[in-house]
């Protein structure tokens, strides 16, 4: 059987798809035995939707910038992708499945030294299918860009994003995941940062019944900086995992992880944060914070920081908290006439707001994320 997915795809890709499919078949879907997937319940996937593509919308590309569908580029200039569409060593089963099955996605490439002021926007709207979307983000040396991503619709999304930032490049990435409650949203983003490169991702996991945001950042050049700001606001039976992995592979790199969760109903939040500093990662400064608020007795959080530090000169901090809304503050608000749901909404918003307020984004994009948080806070209150 041929493993080609697209009508006119290069032979090297078809060959790689076959290998990837073998890898997936050998491993199968992750189960509770895989530590990194322990809490992600994939039972929903056993009754799988037919595969297909999402409705993908990309904003216009300014001059000097490639911002286009992956399928288009594969048809027009496959040679530009040959080195990039590969299965990394150690890629997990779902990343392998993505390579085997993807039919579209997007490529963003910004030429060295080019600064983009206006954000680029991509939205994927899953029409109830199993969609394997693949994205490539390539910033040349000293380039800078802001990418705003929105995931909507239903079905199963299994997205893989691969980003490479050249020396001194700067990427601001915002993602709003608001898929329907019956969807499964799995996202794996891997980033490689060159010397002095600077990355920030703001990820709001608000929708989907089951979601997972894995962000693996390799700080490979001296003085690179990475920041992950994340929030999950979950109700009903929703489940969301954040799996950030920060690898300090070069000297004097800085990383921050700040992830907050608010959980009602019987929702389940998971934070598996990893900081890895191998020998040679001297001058590392890494911080990791996961804070949670449980709104109901049935809600649950598993938070597991993991630090592996083999270098000497390292500053590393981590903290995790799980609490409830402040009763005294609730009473204070109520004593001023606010009904309990309104009071709770205010406190939920106040708790989660700094994830977005502190994000380095243009005001309109930040405001739209603020509105989304506010809307979801209201549904939870």
């Amino acid at each position, binding site marked *: 059987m041929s493993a080609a997915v697209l009508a006119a795809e290069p032979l090297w890709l078809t060959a790689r798809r076959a290998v990837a499919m073998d890898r997936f078949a050998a491993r199968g879907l992750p189960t509770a035995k895989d530590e990194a997937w322990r809490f992600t319940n994939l039972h929903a996937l056993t009754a799988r939707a037919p595969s297909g593509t999402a409705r993908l919308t990309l904003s216009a590309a300014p001059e000097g910038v490639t911002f286009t569908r992956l399928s288009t580029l594969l048809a027009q200039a496959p040679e530009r992708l040959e080195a990039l569409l590969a299965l990394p060593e150690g890629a997990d089963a779902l990343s392998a499945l993505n390579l085997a099955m993807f039919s579209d996605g997007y490529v963003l490439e910004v030429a060295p030294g080019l600064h983009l002021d206006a954000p680029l926007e991509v939205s994927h709207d899953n029409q109830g299918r199993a969609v394997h979307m693949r994205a490539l983000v390539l910033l040349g040396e000293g380039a800078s860009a802001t990418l705003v991503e929105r995931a909507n619709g239903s079905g199963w999304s299994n997205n893989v994003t691969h980003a490479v930032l050249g020396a001194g490049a700067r990427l601001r990435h915002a993602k709003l995941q608001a898929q329907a409650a019956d969807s499964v949203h799995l996202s794996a983003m891997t980033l490689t940062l060159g010397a002095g490169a600077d990355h920030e991702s703001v990820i709001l996991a608000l929708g989907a019944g089951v979601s997972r945001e894995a962000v693996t950042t390799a700080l490979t050049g001296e003085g690179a900086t990475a920041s992950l700001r994340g929030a999950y606001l979950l109700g009903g039976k929703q489940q969301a995992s954040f799996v950030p992995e920060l690898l300090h592979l070069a000297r004097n790199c800085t990383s921050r992880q700040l992830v907050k969760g608010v959980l009602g109903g019987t929702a389940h939040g998971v934070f598996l944060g990893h900081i890895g500093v191998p020998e040679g990662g001297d001058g590392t400064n890494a911080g990791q914070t996961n804070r949670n608020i449980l709104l109901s007795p049935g809600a649950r959080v598993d938070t597991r920081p993991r630090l592996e530090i083999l270098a000497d000169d390292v500053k590393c901090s981590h903290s995790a908290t799980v609490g409830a809304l402040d009763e005294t*503050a609730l*009473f204070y608000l109520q*004593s001023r*006439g*606010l009904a309990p749901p309104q009071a709770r909404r205010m406190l939920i*918003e*106040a708790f989660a707001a700094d994830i977005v307020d502190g994000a380095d984004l243009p005001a309109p994009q930040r405001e739209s994320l603020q509105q989304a948080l506010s809307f979801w806070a209201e549904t939870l209150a």
Partner: protein
Amino acid sequence: MTKLLEVENLHARIAGGRDILKGISLSVGAGEVHAIMGPNGAGKSTLSAVLAAKPGYDVTAGSISYGGADIADMAADERARKGIFLAFQYPVEIPGVNNTYFLRASVNAIRRERGEPDLDASQFLKLVKKKMSLLDIKDDLLKRAVNVGFSGGEKKRNEIFQMAMLEPKLAILDETDSGLDIDALRAVSDGVNKLRDPNRAIVMITHYQRLLDYIEPDFVHVLANGRIVASGDKSFARELEKTGYAHLERAA
């Protein structure tokens, strides 16, 4: 005529604990100012908490009626919307909630209860300006999170500013004078005096005669060991300065 507030033989406790209020009776008419004094731990803040329906307290006997209706089952937010205001002894810091945003939500919640339309942002700001001039409050406090990082005196002023904004029928001020410097005490007292109104009753809990020099009460009560053990007019407070509470507690 029924009084605005009628407390009768009120017994209350922290849920699961012993009784702290052991038979309070207090009757407050519209337009009146009552001062409640008494030793530390007597139950003054507990009384104010029970009047404001703070969760965690059980009323074990007696009744509270407000505007002629029993309010035993009325939750804190509804009492507030119906005009009961508590200025906290220890105002609560709420990080992340902007003071102006909070106050506008609160003003509008109360207006809605009265059947009045919401104030939009500019109408609200006009009202803020008007009330601020009443109290000599700094407007940068309004841009900050509710009470966060406010000095002790700023917190107390903010409480009275909220009272001015919300225009309650019954204001309970729990030690609003504690921690105020001399000028702030005067400013806050002036503010409260401006809010005196034939339709508004004020119950102020205090330890100090000085406050009563600024805000002259119609009645002074001593609350000791969970009961009102003595009451009088404003001259009674002066007497207490000299005699202390001990003889009253013994007599009770």
